[in-house]
Structure formats: C-alpha cells, structure tokens
C-alpha cells in the first residue's frame, strides 16, 4: 500500500500527516520548528512514520507547505492557503470559508465544493490578529497561553481592548491591570479584539457558511467563542485543527500521485 505525506512548516511547530490510499490519517506528529528548519522537518516526518508504524519506503509522494516549505526536502511544494482549504473540506465537506489563525499570520480562504480555493486574504506583516498577539498578552497577564481561553469564559465584566497593534495592545493590558481589572475580563477583551480583526479579514473574501477554523489558535475556546459571538454562527472545529494544513498537503500528494502516476521516490 502507498502512503502520502504532508509536512506543514509553521513558525512555531512543524506538523506532519501521513494518509493512505483511502485518505485515512494513519500517522501524525507535531514537533517544534526551532532554528534548524530542514532538520526539524525531517524529524517531524520520522516521528510520524514511527508513530504510525509506517514503512518509509511506502511514502509515494511528500508535499511541503507552510512558510518554511522551501527549506525542507519534499517532492513538491504547495502553499498553506491551498492546503488548509483542502484539509478543511476533507474534515468538514460543507466548508465554504476557512479561517486559519497561525502563530505569525492569519488567513481567510473562500473555497469551492471540492476544496479548491476561490479567494483568499492574508494579514499584513504585523502580528495583529495572530497567535503571536495572544502569546504576548498571556505573558503580560502572567498566565499560560493555554489558560487564556478557559479564563475568558469566566468573565463577568469584559474589558475593552481597542488597539489591534501588539505593542499598543500590551500597554492597554498593563493599564487595565493597573486599574485593578480582573485577568479573566481582560482575557475576554483580548479575544474580542482579535475576533474583530480576523472578521475584517474574513469580510474581504466574503463569509459563507460553513466556516471552519484551522491552525493552533482554533484550540482556544475563548477565541472560538469571540468569533461565534461576533458572527452569530457556529464554527466547525476539529480536534485535528492544528494539522489541517499538513493533512491538506498529504491529500494533495495523494491526488497528484494517483492522477499523474508519478513514480515513488
């Protein structure tokens, strides 16, 4: 049996997914990106192979995606936009819009029924509206990043964070702390601020249900709540949200291999 690998080189983590001929996920791994991207990419693939007991020789095609896609060995490279769309539609076939909030950038993607990209928008160079914004704010609030979402759910008196900018946002957080505001209320305000930012991005491509969220930040319940509140719709979120890009890459590898009959490596 042939297998197909997708490796998503993100700024903070490298995700690897291996699928079989029948498009089932047979193995996956997530490793930190670190400073040596090429080696970390290989380590992610090795970890996935080991976790699923997959024979490396059975990998017919590997596709790399993500911001570091050109820095790792692979048979082909596909952008994270196309891969997230493909992965999201595979998990939620009704998906017409994908929101991917990653560590360094955020993408809004409109997709067709087969997972093809119809339109997309990405945030600019700055960290506003990305996972990095939350990371900086969690540090300012002295809480673990993972706790930020659950904490915000306990808010009774949400604070307003009016700045999208990470630097100004941090100053606002500090002044809320100085004014004696509760951390849970500030956390709620932070999620609302990002939600407004990413909804602006979504509106650029047009929001059509179903909306699937991918990327590491999808695991943050506070973030999901904030977006759902603003949009008045329920998001599709999978336990596999972090690996949707890698899954899409693996599925595209499979599709290309089967369509073109490319020879195994």
């Amino acid at each position, binding site marked *: 049996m042939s297998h197909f690998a997708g490796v998503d080189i993100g700024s903070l983590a490298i995700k690897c997914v291996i699928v079989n001929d029948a498009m089932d996920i047979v193995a996956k791994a997530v490793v930190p990106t670190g400073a040596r991207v090429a080696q970390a990419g290989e380590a992610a693939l090795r970890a996935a192979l080991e976790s699923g007991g997959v024979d490396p020789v059975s990998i017919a095609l590997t596709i790399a995606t993500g*911001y570091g896609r050109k820095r790792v060995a692979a048979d082909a490279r596909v*952008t994270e936009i196309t891969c997230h769309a493909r992965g999201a539609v595979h998990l939620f076939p009704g998906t017409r819009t994908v929101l991917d909030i990653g560590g360094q*950038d955020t993408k809004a993607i409109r997709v067709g029924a087969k997972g*093809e*990209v*119809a339109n*997309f928008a*990405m945030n600019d*160079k700055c960290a506003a509206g990305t996972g990095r914004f939350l990371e900086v704010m969690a540090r300012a609030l002295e809480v673990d990043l993972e706790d930020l979402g659950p904490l915000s759910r306990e808010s009774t008196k949400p604070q307003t964070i009016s700045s999208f900018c990470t630097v100004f946002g941090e100053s606002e957080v500090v002044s809320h702390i100085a004014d004696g505001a509760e951390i849970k209320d500030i956390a709620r305000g932070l999620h609302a601020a990002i939600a407004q930012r990413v909804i602006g991005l979504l509106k650029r491509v047009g929001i059509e249900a179903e909306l699937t969220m991918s990327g590491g930040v999808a695991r943050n319940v506070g973030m999901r709540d904030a977006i759902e509140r603003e949009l008045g719709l329920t998001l599709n979120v999978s336990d596999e949200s972090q690996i949707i890009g890698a899954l899409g890459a693996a599925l595209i590898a499979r599709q290309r291999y089967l369509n073109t009959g490319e020879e195994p490596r």
Partner: protein
Amino acid sequence: MIATATTPDARTALLDACARALDHPGACLREWKQRHPAAHVVGYFPTYVPTELIYACGALPTGLWGGSIAVSRANAYIQQFTCSIVRSTTEYALHGAFDQLDAVLFPPICDSAKLVASIWALNFSERFMVDMVTLPERLDSDASVAYLAAELRRVGATLAQKLGVTIDDGALACAIDRCNRLRASQQAFCSRRATLEATMPLAHAAAVLKAGTLMHADDYLPLLDAFLAELTSDARSRRSKIPVVVSGLACQLPHPDFLALFDEAGFAVVGDDLLLGMCGGVAVATGGDPYLALARAFTQGPPLATRHHDTIHRHEFILDQWQRGAARGVVFLVPKFCEPEWFDLRYLKAEMEKRGIPNLVLDFDEDPTGFGPVLTRLEAFAEILM
C-alpha cells in the same frame, strides 16, 4: 505562443545601462554634467510633467523615484500614514541627494504630492527651484486645453528664466520630436510585452522603462531601439508559465526583488500598465502652437488612477491587455496609503469580477525586505489559476 530572442549584446547593453542609471543615479548625473558642463538638470515627480519643456531648455529631465532609504528626518515633515514615495524622496532631499538639481517640477496628482511640493518649496528653494505644473481636472473641454496651454507657457517661461535660457520655437519643436520618439519606442517595447516575456522578466522590463525617466533620451533611445530592432520571435513557448496582466499606479514601483517574485511563482507577465503615466500618452502634434499641442496631448493621454476621463476607462486598457495576452488573471499592485489607487481599485476589481476574471491585490511600499508572504500570495494565486 511565442518566445523571443535578441543577441545578448543589445539586451545586455540596454540592461547594464539601465541598471547603472537606477543603482547609481547620483554618479550618473555627475558624469552627465561633466559631459555637458553648461547644461542643467531638472527633476520631476511622477507621473506627468511636460519633459518637452525641460529638453527645450537644454536640460536633462530626471524622474524622482525615491527608494529603499530608512525614513527618519522626513518624519518631522510628513506623517507616517503617507505613501512611501513622498516620504523617501523627501528623506533623500534632506540628505542632499538632489542638490545637483537646478529645479524640480511637481504635478498635482494627489493630496500627498501637493503636500510634498509645498514642503519642498518651503524648505529647499534655496537649493533648487520648486514649481507645480497645475494640471486641469476635466479633460474633455476646450477650456481645459486652453488653460493648460497657458499654464505650460508659464512653467516653461519660469523654468527658462531660472536656468538663464530662453525657449525658442525651434528648440521646443526639437524637444517635442525627441519625446515623441522616446514615447513611441517605449510603447513599442510595452506592446511587445507578451513577446518579450520569455527573455525579459517583469523586474527587468520595469527597470528599462524606469531608466528611461532618468537617462537623457539621446543616451537611452539608441540602446532601446537597438534592442527592439533585434527582438525577434521564435517558436519556443511559455507553456509552463501562467500568463497574467499586472496593473498598478504609474508613480511608484515595488522593489525589483518584489517584481522578481512573479517569475519565481511561475507567472509570465503578458501585459502591464505599471509605467503608463510616465511612458504612455499620445504623440504631440507638430506644427501649430506647440503649447496647445502639448496641452491637447495631455488631455488625450491614457486614463490613470491620477487622470480620469469621462469616456475612456482604465479597466478597458487592462481588459485589452488581458485579451491580447490570453491572460488567465490580473494582479493589482497597489502602493500602501495611495488614495488614488485604492479609490480606483474597488471599481477595477468589480469590472474584473463582473467578467469572472480572477484577480489578486498586492499592496507594497519601498521596504526591500519581508517578501515571503508576497510570494505565498502569488503562489496561492498561481495554484488557483492552474
């Protein structure tokens, strides 16, 4: 359908001269002044000023393009939410980079350009003369033509007086002829864009056109004409590349490394209007009143984000390029904080979408770094078009 070939000599000679003009504008100006000790140099801000008047004064017209300079001193004069060309040109001016110039002419293409013209007039007029060529808004009336002819007469007289020369009819006719030949050759270059693509990627083609705004026409034209004369078609195809049209404001270009990403992402740029404001335009009629002829030619020039016609529309030019180049999509390059271009963009996108033409918007400034996300956007667009 076709690819092209020229002997490496004509192509190399042209590209080398253009690269030098762009990379070392100060040194090139000094050399030119050494070769023409009695002549003057007049800078002009994009997009349109009548370079014919500058040539008629025996001076070298040279475009002021700004560039990738770290802006610090200019922050004291211009707010940060202004397009990068007005900030970087002002920074260069504050560093004395334009002190070799005898005069600078500005067109009132937008509020930012008007702002920078008045800042320069207040701060630099002891170094060089600063004047504004006040262009008419309406292009379809005889009154506009008459008004502009009078304005051009005023600008010509002021400039000539400052440079200590006179503009006689013979010199102006000669300058008009020179600029007509320059425009014709640049337009021949542009109209063969699809043919050119195989041997000259977008970054180089844009450099060739841009250099034409810096070099003297007598130095530049022989190189361009030699290249064009040898540009032939051959049967090699661009089958593996995706044909697109690139559209953007005629007064600011992205960094060459940004333009090179089109190649890296697998695009063949088969049409563009990037420097239409500087190089486009109709031939100025000869015989008769030269000022009236210049004014009439301006009002008949192609529509731009900074020059709107009631009857000729900008999207028609893009659609024409799209059709002729059998393009699959359109990429809009929009300078950050450029009001005229963002204003046009909404309508241009709507026209494309009405016809089902896939399009991508990329914004840019003169920052020479951080092109990774731009490449991702271009590659994702290529994946849509595949």
